[in-house]
């Protein structure tokens, strides 16, 4: 019997707990919106504009919590997820437009959903591979998030507002009844 060829990977990753999206309400009437921006250029403005549109056009009550991630490459802490779950009814996060932050944005979306909070993750469309891979790693293969055309960082403020207008309806859809 020859020696076995050793596996350099350490074997399969631990299997994550089964995933189900957070329950959705029929609409956003009276919903408290949370925004978690990841410091990427134009992310804060894009989320801010989407939040305004959900209030103005989709019946949401107000944007009640806005935070900036301290490390865009890393998933949000349990404490931060709990804070959003306590103070909001839905959350929007992004923009995943780099290798590490697209993955962590998807991880954050899955974590919010597991905490019972409907989440809309926004990624640049150049990073679906890494976002999908991270969602699968977190036990949520096929997790639904929103994409916006790459690049986002070089857009002017007016162009960012245009993007927000394009996204707002999709965000509302993903955060309510039929979306998840």
């Amino acid at each position, binding site marked *: 019997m020859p020696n076995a060829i050793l596996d350099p990977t350490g074997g399969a990753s631990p299997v994550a707990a089964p995933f189900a999206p957070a329950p959705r309400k029929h609409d956003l009437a009276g919903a408290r919106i949370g925004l978690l921006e990841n410091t990427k250029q134009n992310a804060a403005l894009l989320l801010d504009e989407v939040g305004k549109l959900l209030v103005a056009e989709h019946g949401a009550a107000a944007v009640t919590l806005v935070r900036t991630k301290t490390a865009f490459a890393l998933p949000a802490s349990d404490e931060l997820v709990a804070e959003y779950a306590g103070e909001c009814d839905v959350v929007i996060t992004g923009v995943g437009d780099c290798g*590490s932050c697209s993955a962590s944005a998807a991880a954050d979306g899955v974590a919010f959903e597991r905490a019972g909070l409907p989440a809309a993750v926004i990624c640049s469309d150049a990073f679906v591979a890494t976002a999908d891979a991270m969602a699968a790693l977190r036990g949520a293969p096929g997790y639904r998030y929103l994409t916006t055309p790459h690049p986002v960082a070089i857009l002017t403020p007016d162009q960012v507002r245009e993007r927000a207008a394009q996204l707002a309806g999709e965000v509302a859809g993903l955060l309510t009844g039929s979306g998840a």
Partner: protein
Amino acid sequence: MSELDPDLAQAAVEHCYDQGWSDGLPLVPASQPLVDRFLATTSRPPDEVIGRLAQVDREVTVELAAINAAMAGCRPEYFPVVLAAWDALMRERATTGGGWQSTSGPAPLIVVNGPVRDELGFNKAGGVFGPGFRANATVPRAIGLIVRNALGIHPHVFEQATQGLPGRWSICVAENEEESPWEPLSVEAGLPAGTSAVAATLLRTSEFVDNRHTSDAEQLLADLADTISRTGAWIFRHASAGIVFCPEHAQLLAGAGFDRAKVRSWLAERCGRTVGDLADVGKDGLGDNGVRHASGERPDGFDRLLPADDPKHLLIAVAGARNAGISMVVRLFSDWSATAVPVETKELA
């Protein structure tokens, strides 16, 4: 050596490709007896965790590092250098902060000091950034395989390099202490002289400065400053750099009274661009998030590239042949820990 069976070897190599373990080049299939020889070079237990990447929930043990080092083509006695290089990289903010996943596709720069250089055959002289030396080629390759296999960071999935850096997983230089006018890098980093040690950081890019034109130290430094001050790799408020000096340049500078600290302060003061230059390339704006952007609204002035004149922001080493005035400028992915990790020397039983 007729007892060696190339057909069996080829089948084993193909098996490793089929498993998705390879960086594209053939791997040495690792067996337990081979990996045991690696593990025998260190007193650290095989199950010791030497790195964890929280975002992907994966960790690296001494044993996994040994398997990957064996596959990379390292000799067992290189393994303490691989461990020191890995530990040095784990001290870099970027390696746990998303650097392995980055669009920049950063390359580790590994610098080896001390007796281990000659004991293991690390090249410190001609072609030090190039191929031809097993130790220099396989130690950084081992790091790359650890990232790929133990951490699960694969190209096109979690590894999102837009183009990547030529030389990723192949940049490992021994310092040419014998022809350097300055103390070894490891000594500047705080270790006793004569210690075998490894320093490491991540690079965005590299570009050589060929100056065989002047004997004036300040003209030479100005040539280096010009390359360090390029806008292309400058994306945040400040940037950090490194210079791997050839012996000729280092000796010219030392002859004019420059030690490492004086080189740094000279360059820190002069490396940078006018706000106008930065506006021309859309990088003059300074936002709260530290990322430069196109603004066009700042008054003219001079933006220094280096945040300070300390080793964290300007790594200085000496390597290469003494046959020409060609030094390598590198741009760091973030900054450098400014430390070096001693190489464990375990007496083999």
